[in-house]
């Protein structure tokens, strides 16, 4: 009996070791490429078959920060567009999520499918179709046109996330506030908003990331006149300018990462969670 037990334990330990080994190697595969990319960003000369650059330099980074490269301007435009898309998507998705999460009504099934359809049906096809109409309306080649098309691939995610949040939340608490005499704006700002905050955070982050990394829709709708960050990174990869493309990619990754972390830090502050507890 005890022998069987100890056998079992050794097996569990072996399993555990194997599991760790597998996990760490998979994680390594996820991380090493990023480090390798970082080395490339400091390379001046790195011919085949050298394992490390022959010459290191800060030239590519300097070029990036030089205003004449337009990189920082493109980065700010990217931030501006993605923040605008995030704001619009949330304004659209909070009421929509409430309707789909709390109420039963005619046509709900169809609307649910319509909401999720842009995840499955390629936005590329849809945008190519609508491009001609945007040209006619004077929206193509302008920031506003780009913001509008970015809504197509993003709102399915934000509506879906907020629908789930509202479905879990239910409408009991808001109902209580109504009975106690709160008007609808008070109910929204003091009751609903704090309660769905975490849902807004994940929906907002998702929308931002999808919009921020968008290449094709911006390229098509912006027609080369709306120069977001992906617009200047793409030709660098295409022409094989490795050190510079590596710098731009790293900044791109860092910007996305910083946004996600900052949003989490700012909005997960204690003040708000205290308010939440008082409810």
């Amino acid at each position: 009996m005890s022998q069987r037990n100890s056998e079992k334990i050794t097996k569990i330990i072996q399993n555990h070791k194997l599991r760790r080994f597998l996990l760490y190697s998979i994680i390594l595969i996820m991380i090493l490429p990023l480090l390798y990319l970082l080395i490339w960003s400091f390379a001046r000369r790195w011919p085949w078959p050298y394992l490390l650059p022959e010459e290191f330099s800060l030239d590519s980074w300097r070029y990036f920060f030089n205003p004449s490269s337009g990189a920082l301007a493109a980065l700010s435009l990217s931030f501006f567009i993605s923040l605008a898309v995030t704001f619009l998507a949330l304004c659209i998705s909070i009421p929509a999520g409430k309707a789909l999460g709390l109420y039963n009504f005619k046509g709900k099934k169809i609307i649910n499918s319509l909401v999720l359809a842009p995840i499955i049906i390629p936005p590329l096809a849809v945008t190519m179709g609508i491009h001609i109409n945007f040209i006619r309306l004077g929206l193509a080649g302008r920031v506003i046109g780009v913001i509008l098309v970015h809504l197509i691939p993003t709102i399915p995610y934000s509506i879906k996330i907020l629908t789930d949040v509202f479905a879990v939340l239910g409408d009991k608490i808001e109902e209580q506030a109504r009975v106690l005499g709160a008007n609808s704006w008070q109910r929204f700002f003091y009751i609903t908003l704090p309660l769905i905050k975490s849902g807004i955070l994940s929906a907002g982050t998702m929308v931002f990331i999808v919009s921020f990394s968008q290449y094709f829709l911006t390229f098509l709708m912006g027609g080369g006149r709306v120069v977001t960050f992906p617009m200047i990174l793409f030709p660098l990869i295409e022409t094989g300018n490795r050190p510079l493309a590596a710098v731009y990619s790293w900044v791109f990754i860092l910007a996305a990462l910083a946004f996600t972390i900052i949003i989490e830090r700012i909005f997960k502050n204690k003040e708000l969670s205290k308010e939440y507890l008082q409810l």
Partner: protein
Amino acid sequence: MDDKYEILKPYILLLPALIVLIVLFLGGLVSAIAQSLGYFPLIGLEEFTLNYFVEVLTDAQFLAALRFSIYISLLSSLLSVILGVFLAYQLLKLADDNSFISAIYKLPIIVPYLAATLMVFLIFSQSGILSRILYNLNIIDNMNLFPKMVFDNNGIGIILTYFWKQLPFVTLVVLTVLKNINTSWEEVASNLGANGWQIFWNIYFPISLPSISSAFVIIFAFSFGAYEVPYLLGPTFPRALPVLAFQRYNSLDLSQRPYAMVIAVTLAAISFVLMLIYKKLIKISKL
């Protein structure tokens, strides 16, 4: 009065979303379909016809692109799903001290596809780090001896990019479901003598199957309709469908436009059928 408002309330709340979805999404789709049927008044085409469809669907270049796109999306999605489920299960079992790992593995999700594309190029191209390592190990003495994995006819570079980006996504989706599965079932099964594999296949797998399949559908549809990765890492022949569609679209010759739209509509139609099959499967599994 109040009653009427209550009935209308969900529709009022949905109005902004519906405007965007109907005007932009459905509007774009209808416009693409109309153009694919030859309705393009800008250059004087005003009659509906199926000719463009017939021409494109029998074109060898199109068929090669269709095969290539399906092959790339299917292989990368299958790889991501199989390894993603495996990784999620391992992460679940490592539950105690995994805060570092569970933060790190998600990193590729926020890495933009363009950056992922560059990394695959820097690692797997014939002058990439792998070929350099093989040279330094004296396995190859010339970069041309390294197998072509970027711009290659098998789309290996494209598949690797999608795999790297989508594996953590599948893991995240599946792990969320696995975490909510009642562990007492596992204890019962294990007391009855079930081994690890049996527990996985008979408890965890069936319960997480709906989210596994929806993750599959989402990543398949994404890879199937994405432009930049196959454009940057793919061969000149066959091209992926989205690349072919945009090539036709971007042509200075506007009469090429309906052909581009046929390709776009085919992309949309195949994705749509995939969604229908998925919904049928979900229904069957719920019976």
